[in-house]
């Protein structure tokens, strides 16, 4: 009896060892998979011998949740930083080289040079050319801002589709886990998959998890809106194909509740959706308003007046779609930066005369100041230069000072974007570090260490050898017994 039971114990030990070896081999093979949690066998004594009672997954809920939040925050910040970078490059250019502020500065210098020698027609051409660059910078900037908005809109639409797909996949995996848990099946692989899906979902929206009976999981956004509860909740969004200035974008609805946008350079946005909404509805919109106000300031500063005050002021060097009338003072005119253009009456390539800049009269003879056509008349030019430095009132919604000169308004616009970038850079440094740190901590808690598995393998090898040895000894003993009784 005891020899037979020894044999069966050795047998079960062999079986245990091979099970464990298979776990080790699985662990080693998944060592590089960040979504894989280390498995380990739990042995329990059972007469005769020991048996593997269950296979556990290494888990750390706290670290996992921290990591989810950190990932969401970092994704949000990274999205915002990317958007700001795009705006910076496409609107202001490297070193602000193509920004409206730089172009206005160039125009100022060109005007100054022209005012010093008004008899020189080449300098007039030069000043008009500088004005053309200002117009181009504003037109291109406005186009870039709206292009960014529609790009973001597309990105949001793709993200929402992806999110719905992930939630559907989550449903399948969650069902598998619930069913498996009820049936006492090994659902470790399904857990891995569910964790991986959670990480992917948290890249789009910040998620909080609640685990219920049978490992059933409920997902809510950090704001408390249910994302998944037994079934996925619909995330809906209607995309716009094109954007124009002043047009509002559609919200993203999670279970019928609009998703809030982020705020600030070191953004409160968690997940790429909130950051994208912030870019599309706040930052890009404000930037467009700033460009529009710069355009309005230019049209106003270069407006022509009638020397006898009989005719109303009219658009001079810069005009717009509704020209030659002037845009209303102190009021934002949506899309002006896109529609501002050089007055054809002063543009040589459109058959105009650049010297009208010196003499006036782009809107007809009634606006001519230099009636005698004196070659060195500089009063109007000096007047324009003065007006660029005089305070005017701007729309406060632009986020910049409401009363200042056009010149300083345009450079404050640069400061505004740079301060957002500065904050964003600081924010992403901290958030990136946190995301990396929590990922490392989580991996250290639940990941695989190959060396440890190897050490385990050595142990198992010895155990296997010992069991095998035991079996052969028992075999010999039994053989001896048989021999004796023959």
């Amino acid at each position: 009896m005891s020899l037979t039971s020894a044999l069966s114990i050795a047998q079960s030990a062999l079986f245990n060892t091979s099970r464990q070896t298979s776990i080790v081999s699985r662990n080693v093979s998944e060592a590089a998979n960040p979504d894989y949690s280390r498995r380990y066998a739990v042995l329990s004594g059972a007469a005769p011998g020991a048996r593997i009672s269950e296979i556990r997954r290494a888990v750390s809920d706290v670290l996992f949740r921290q990591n989810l939040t950190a990932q969401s925050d970092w994704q949000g910040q990274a999205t915002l930083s990317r958007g700001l970078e795009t705006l910076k490059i496409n609107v202001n250019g490297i070193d602000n080289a193509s920004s409206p502020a730089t172009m206005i500065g160039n125009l100022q210098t060109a005007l100054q040079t022209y005012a010093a020698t008004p008899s020189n027609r080449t300098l007039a051409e030069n000043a008009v050319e500088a004005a053309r660059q200002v117009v181009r910078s504003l037109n291109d900037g406005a186009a870039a801002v709206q292009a960014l908005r529609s790009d973001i809109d597309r990105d949001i639409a793709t993200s929402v589709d992806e999110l719905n797909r992930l939630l559907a996949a989550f449903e399948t995996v969650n069902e598998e886990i619930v069913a498996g848990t009820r049936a006492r099946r090994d659902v470790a692989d399904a857990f891995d998959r569910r964790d991986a899906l959670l990480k992917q979902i948290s890249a789009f929206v910040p998620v909080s998890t609640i685990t219920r009976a049978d490992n059933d999981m409920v997902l809510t956004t950090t704001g408390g809106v249910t994302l998944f509860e037994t079934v996925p909740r619909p995330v809906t969004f209607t995309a716009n194909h094109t954007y124009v200035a002043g047009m509002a974008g559609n919200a993203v609805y999670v279970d019928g509740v609009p998703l809030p946008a982020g705020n600030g350079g070191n953004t409160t946005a968690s997940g790429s959706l909130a950051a994208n909404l912030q870019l599309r509805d706040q930052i890009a919109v404000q930037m467009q308003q700033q460009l529009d106000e710069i355009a309005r300031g230019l049209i106003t500063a270069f407006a022509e007046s009638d020397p006898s005050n009989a005719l109303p002021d009219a658009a001079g060097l810069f005009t717009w779609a509704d020209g030659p009338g002037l845009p209303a003072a102190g009021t934002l005119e949506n899309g002006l930066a896109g529609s501002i253009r050089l007055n054809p009456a002063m543009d040589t390539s459109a058959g105009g005369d650049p010297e009208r800049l010196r003499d006036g009269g782009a809107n007809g003879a009634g606006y001519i100041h230099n009636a005698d056509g004196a070659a060195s008349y500089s009063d109007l030019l000096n007047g324009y230069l003065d007006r660029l430095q005089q305070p005017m009132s701007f729309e406060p919604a632009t986020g910049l000072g409401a009363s200042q000169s056009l010149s300083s308004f345009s450079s404050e616009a640069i400061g505004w974007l740079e301060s957002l970038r500065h904050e964003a850079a600081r924010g992403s440094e901290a958030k990136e570090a946190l995301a990396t740190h929590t990922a490392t901590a989580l991996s250290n808690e639940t990941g695989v260490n190959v060396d440890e598995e190897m050490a385990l393998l050595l142990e198992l090898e010895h155990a296997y050898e010992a069991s095998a040895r035991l079996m052969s000894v028992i075999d010999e003993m039994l053989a001896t017994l048989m021999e004796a009784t023959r």
Partner: protein
Amino acid sequence: MKISFVSTNAISQTLRYQMMRMQADLVERQEEMTSGRLADPGRSLGARAGFSFSMSREVTRLEGLVDANSLASGRLSATQDGLTQLNTISQEMLSTLTAAMSGVDDTAVVQTSAKRTLETLTSVLNSNLNGEYLFAGINTDVKPLNDFSDPASPNKAQFDAQFLAYFGFSQSDPAASGITAAQIEGFLDSVLEPSFMGTGWQAAWSNAADQTITSRIAPNETAETSVTANGDGMRKLAMTAAVLTEFLQMPVGEEARRTIYERTTTMVGEAIADLASTQSQAGIAEKRVEDASDRISSQIDLLKTFVGDLEGVDPYEASTRVNALLTQIETSYALTARIQQLSLLRYLP
């Protein structure tokens, strides 16, 4: 039971992440070291980037102003030069007249002197700098003074017409010898002087504008930086020279000639005073431009210092940091290699 645990994945991830951070840092520090300026001033300075930008722009604008001022300075010093010449020629005219009055009456000498004065006046007032007539006011594309010696020119025609209207005969008429001193006084007082000092000047003599060139010499300061040929001094000098050249050609009597001398002497004297005052005005403008340029230059220096303080990077510090980073990265490479080799697998049979 294990106390501490590290996963193989975390080890390599951490190494990679640290390496990436250091390399990104190295690129920026290296750029800073070579350019002496922040790699991304906007990101580092934040809202202050706006100040630094507007200061750099202001520097460009002020430099443009200094350039424009040098143009105005050049114009003013050329103007001064011209005015000095006018002054000299007036002085010469005056001494010739004084000599003539004090008995040495050689009509030819006075006449030559008058002609020379007229020529100099015409050439100085018509002088040109960079394609602009210096004394034309803002009308710089038109020659300011008509040439009196040209019989077809309007000022000569005006003079002839005025003479004919007053005396009833032309200058070449033999009756001219009968012109009395009183007639001359009358002609000068009632015809020539009102014409020269009034509208007749711009109608026939000068094409210059009264308005002088206004230049912006500092961001919020403008100055008149030219002198117009319509100044009193120029008019009086022109009148003197014209009267002398015309009347001395005629066989006028002794008494009449004396009157002409007396009157023109007074007039040249006035012209000299007027020219001197114009010269001092130009001098004041010159000084203002110079002062403005000096002021702007020191402003530029100051602004450049500010921008340098904001955007500049100490090249020594940057280079030290680059060296430190290089050492760190090398150490990290060595460590990575060692750590990757560190595996139990290598020791298992």
